């Protein structure tokens, strides 16, 4: 029995490899994703002053640090039974949206697009953001502008563009100055234009690869998303699980997560597999992200 190992997995954050176990005829028998790193945040936040946790956990991921910063500060607000002022909630939500703008531009243009635009058969030395910048500098300029704008929003609201610090229990440590607001407003129309163009680029490449879209990674899973009165939302709301066929919907409050979300340890992976508790593991494995967010919404 043979084995193929693809390592490192590239153009993603984190450390991992894919192990493909082959049968006696050399055909794939089992595919395993192995996340090969663990740091132990679950351990080393224990016993620290709660308000320091939002200054520690952003390092879980340097790409999506804002959600980790905000999730932890929201958990403390809740544990201490604090209701934060409306402007603070708006600034925190804006911080999150800024991160989403950066993270989407990063994922699509800097990480995924080289495959679609330069072709999957282009050499790895070329099939990356540097190669893309040579092939289509105008497109990359727009990608950079989108990321810059998103990062600037986080810088203004979070105090730093990477690993923000302003979320404190009870609110936010920094207000937005009028000139900072005006700086963002001055650019927003151009950025919306770039984002709209980006959607068109995504549509184009998706259509070009429609045969792959229909067969690669097509699996049934549960879906999980955040809602506000049935409408999709990012920062605060109730959670909803939806069954793979879309018939079953289960709403719950974030505070009840332990009743609904379980995690399974598997022997070949430092990452645990989260699942919908009532469906068990592996049946209750769920996905999050844009598809899930849209599916669960009314």
């Amino acid at each position, binding site marked *: 029995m043979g084995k193929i190992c693809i390592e490192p997995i590239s*153009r993603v954050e984190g450390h991992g490899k894919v192990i493909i176990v082959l049968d006696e005829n050399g055909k794939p028998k089992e595919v395993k994703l192995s996340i090969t790193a663990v740091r*132990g945040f679950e351990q080393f936040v224990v016993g*620290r002053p709660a308000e320091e946790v939002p200054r520690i956990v952003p390092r879980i991921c340097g790409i999506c640090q804002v959600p980790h910063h905000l999730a932890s500060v929201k958990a403390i607000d809740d544990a201490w039974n604090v209701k934060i002022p409306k402007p603070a909630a708006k600034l925190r939500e804006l911080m999150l949206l800024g991160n989403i703008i950066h993270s989407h531009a990063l994922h699509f243009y800097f990480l995924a697009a080289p495959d679609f635009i330069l072709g999957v058969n282009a050499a790895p030395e070329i099939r990356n953001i540097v190669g893309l910048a040579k092939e289509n500098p105008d497109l990359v300029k727009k990608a950079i502008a989108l990321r810059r704008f998103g990062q600037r929003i986080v810088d203004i609201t979070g105090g730093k563009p990477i690993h923000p610090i302003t979320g404190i229990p009870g609110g936010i440590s920094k207000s937005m100055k009028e000139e900072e607001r005006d700086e963002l407003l001055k650019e927003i129309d151009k950025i919306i234009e770039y984002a709209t163009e980006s959607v068109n680029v995504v549509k184009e490449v998706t259509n070009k690869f429609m045969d792959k879209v229909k067969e690669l990674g097509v699996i049934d899973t549960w879906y999980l998303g955040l809602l506000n009165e049935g409408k999709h939302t990012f920062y605060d709301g109730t959670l909803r699980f939806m069954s793979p066929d879309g018939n079953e919907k289960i709403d719950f409050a974030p505070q009840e997560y332990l009743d609904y979300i379980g995690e399974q340890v598997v*022997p070949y992976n430092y990452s645990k597999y989260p699942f919908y508790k009532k469906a068990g593991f592996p049946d209750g494995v769920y996905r999050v992200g844009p598809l899930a967010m849209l599916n669960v919404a009314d």
Partner: protein
Amino acid sequence: MVKIGIIQLCGCSGCHMAFLDLHDKLLEILPNIEIVYAPILADIKEIPDGIDVFLVEGGIRNEHEEHLLHEIREKSKKVVAFGTCAAYGGIPGLGNLYEVNELLNVVYSTDSTNNKGDIPCEEIPKLTDIVKPISDFVKVDYLIPGCPPTPELIEKVLTAIIEGKEPELPKKIVCDECPLKKEEVFPKKYKRSYEDKPIEGICLFEQGYTCLGSGTRAGCGAKCPRAGMPCRGCFGKTDAVLDLGAKIANTFANANIEEALKIPDKIGLLNRFTLPAALINRKIK
């Protein structure tokens, strides 16, 4: 063209993001360098020989990272500790306060875990005893501190290295670039960040907030104090001292010893980003 390698070991990729935060300047820099290995940005699977400058993000937490680091050193002319994790261990270094088994038991026995106590052990690299900065294993030519470093500092150091000049790091402390006004008073008591609202424009330390700016290397532009939050030391120590935590402990105690003793979680505060590079770099029984 200068051949560059860049990797993330025990880090979070935030330093890679800080490099991309050069934004439009990337278009000036990228044509002059050749990125020959960069798992976060390109699919090249093997580290090639003859790399001019290798930027290493992250410290060492497992045997695989240790192995990669030695390979990187062998194949590179200059190795740069890129960011605070590589230079001083960073936040993952807080793991040094626990034995490895203790740490893994907590991670794999959380309330959410279905099969509590099953610890992964196949196909994954074994954790090292403690987190260490990369300079504990190989010769490091240059440091770019910060969690993450600022794009300006990355550009400055990288440009100097590429031009064959000796890069210079800021020699001063965060206080020297902090706009908040000092009134030369000692704090009456030490406060936790949620306990009070700081008076705007006045030094956070003098108001009683446990700001680490007085021992931390400058270079960030005092971003945290500017946003109303005390410094946590993410740029590490200056060249003038041996140990950031000891330096700050001294300052806090000199200012008000009785109150300094009441500060909660002194280890996690004073060594937040630098425990693996501290004089005492782990929990001692």
